């Protein structure tokens, strides 16, 4: 199959057939915000940050789950998209406790970088101010639900890479929460292998290693993609 040629933000770009729009956009050197996407994991199209305008299509499409096609004309950074992205990040900040000034993950957080990227300087929505529990029953890791953005990267890393599926989501809507096993304390989980991939995948530090100071905490979600790549080459 021949490579596809498409127009992204006015530039002609080539893409390998079957490629996703997101990787093509990034290959072209264009910055586009994402949150639920992590290289190496399957995509779910949940955070809606990578929505793009495609000419001839009525609805905005998530770049992470849209396959490129010949002659596609894509706009990734229109005023409308910028406004939506900002609103979405604001909604996230209002949802749980994401006050950077008092957060130990400050400076080490994808959500924080995202806010800077979309130019969010204040939150217009009412903070919901719900206190969620912190689970530190696991000897090596902990989870602070107050910092969770429900991107489900931990769920997918655990299921797809480690093959364990300790993590899942319970509840629905605003009451959704990531859980371990059948909503038991993480430390009592009989399936968790303590591999730590969930912690690698976590964008905000909601899942954190214990006994490491914040400054030393490596935030290395790109290692998920490295693991996937390494396995491909070995097998």
């Amino acid at each position, binding site marked *: 199959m021949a490579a596809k040629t498409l127009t992204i933000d006015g530039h002609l770009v080539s893409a390998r057939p079957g490629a996703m729009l997101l990787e093509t956009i990034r290959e072209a050197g264009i910055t586009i915000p994402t949150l639920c996407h992590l290289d190496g994991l399957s995509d*779910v199209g949940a955070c809606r940050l990578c929505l793009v305008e495609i000419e001839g299509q009525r609805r905005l499409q*998530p770049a992470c789950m849209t396959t490129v096609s010949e002659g596609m004309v894509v706009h990734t950074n229109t005023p409308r998209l910028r406004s939506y992205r900002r609103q*979405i990040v604001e909604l996230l900040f209002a949802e749980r406790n994401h006050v950077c000034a008092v957060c130990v993950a400050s400076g080490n957080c994808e959500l924080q970088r995202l806010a800077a990227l979309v130019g969010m300087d204040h939150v217009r929505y*009412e903070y919901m101010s719900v206190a969620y529990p912190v689970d530190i029953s696991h000897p090596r890791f902990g989870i602070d639900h107050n910092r969770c953005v429900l991107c489900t990267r931990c769920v997918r890393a655990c299921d797809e890479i480690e093959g364990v599926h300790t993590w899942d989501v319970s509840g*629905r*809507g*605003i009451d959704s929460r990531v859980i371990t096993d059948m909503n038991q304390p993480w430390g009592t989980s009989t399936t968790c292998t303590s591999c730590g991939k969930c912690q690698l995948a976590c964008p905000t530090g909601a899942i954190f290693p214990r006994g490491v100071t914040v400054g030393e905490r490596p935030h290395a979600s790109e290692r998920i993609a490295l693991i996937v790549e390494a396995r491909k080459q070995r097998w």
Partner: protein
Amino acid sequence: MELHELEAIAEREQSQRARLRILCCAAAGCQASGSLEIKRRLETVLTAAGKLAEVDIMPVGCMGLCGHGPLVRIEPSGELFERVTPADAEELVAALEGGPCNVPRCDRNHPFFTRQLPIVLRHCGQINPERIEDYIAVGGYRTLYHVIHEMTPAEVINAITRSGLRGRGGAGYPTGLKWATVAKSPGERKFVVCNADEGDPGAFMDRSVLESDPHLVLEGMAIAAYAVGAEQGFIYVRGEYPLAIERLQKAIVQARRLGLLGAQIFESGFNFRIDIRVGAGAFVCGEETALIASIEGRRGQPRPRPPYPAESGLWGMPTLINNVETFANVTAIIENGPEWYASIGTAKSKGTKVFALTGKIRNTGLIEVPMGISLREIVEEIGGGTPDGIPVKAVQTGGPSGGCIPASLFDTPVDYESLAAVGSIMGSGGMVVMDEHTNMVDVARFYIEFCKDESCGKCIPCRVGTVQLFNLLTRLRNGQGSGNDLIEIEALCELMRETSLCGLGQSAPNPVMSTLHYFRHEYERLIGAEVEHGS
């Protein structure tokens, strides 16, 4: 099963039918108001009079005028009695043979009955939904025989396409086109799914059809399966419909026993089995991709489309998903021909639509009307206006995905395009009538609260947006809102409509946007209240 055996069953049924019959509504609405007790009482009275052998007492499905239930009809006179109590049993038995009877009668010449055109509901209230023989006696399963033995799958699809039938779940996608796509999509197996996860507040069309005539839906599904090349079907029905589930289960067992479902249907090479999957109470599972996830045993969450289920649905196989009412239209189209069906309705919306008429309306119940009828005819003539004579303010169509249409637009014809043009949708058929005393901000807040509780939580605009919108509307209603809040409400509505992942989030702002459009003064009055209070 051969055709002559089917006809033998029908003949036997007709010959065994008593001349005098009492039909008691046994759908959920009338059952809730005590129709089963009436039936038992009738049996006692008839036994005491020694007439039990001469009179058939039949439990039947919905007779339409649910708000006046329990309903009882007597044959052959066809008189329909409303608000029957067990104490009326003696008089009803007397009425069978023309005796005096003071039980209130429904006026069969009322527009509620005369303006309807029953196609989907044609057997409702006529047959016992728990007996397949009753369905066969009114011509049931003949169409399936005809389709299997005398039509090719392409001919079936062609007939559905030419009929102009569109999806009755609300979005109105052309049914024939969907069937053709599934038929043409490559896949080692294909599936047919009936979406019976009806969840809109005030909607009970699908429940009534399933409780009143389950075999009509099964036969429609079997025809669809033959057309698209599927051997397995699922009915995804919500757990809140226990009676519908029970009757579907009975119907499937009966059909399988007679060889009308299962292997080698009508001694042909066509196999089709149907299983029931019961929903666990999530509104979002009516969204087709969430429904698929739920059947597969996963968390009921939508995924972005494309790919559409017609190409990649259950376990990645081409899957045909249609609503209960869509399947219920199929046999009539094949039986009477697509041209007949296309002659009913408007240029782009063919056939009839079933509506559940509720709210501030005299004749609460289930109606089936030709497309193109005006809202005014439905509300004022069929529905009989409001019970207390207070003027009607608006009608809400399409549930939480729809909008409120003000009384000034009641000449709007009921078809997919016209309803969309006035800011609502056809939806699955819920129609909630509101009178002048209704506070439209409260209405909008009610629907947003519903969506907030039913959001699956996967995408951010819907998960958090519904909560913020609900909070803003609450603040406004309590007189604490500001003009800026109105701007924020509008911006949030746009965000949700444009960026939410599935139909739930995309359409959740509709009740807010339509009330803001038509009843903006009610919102603005609330802002004024705060100013007055402050000064």
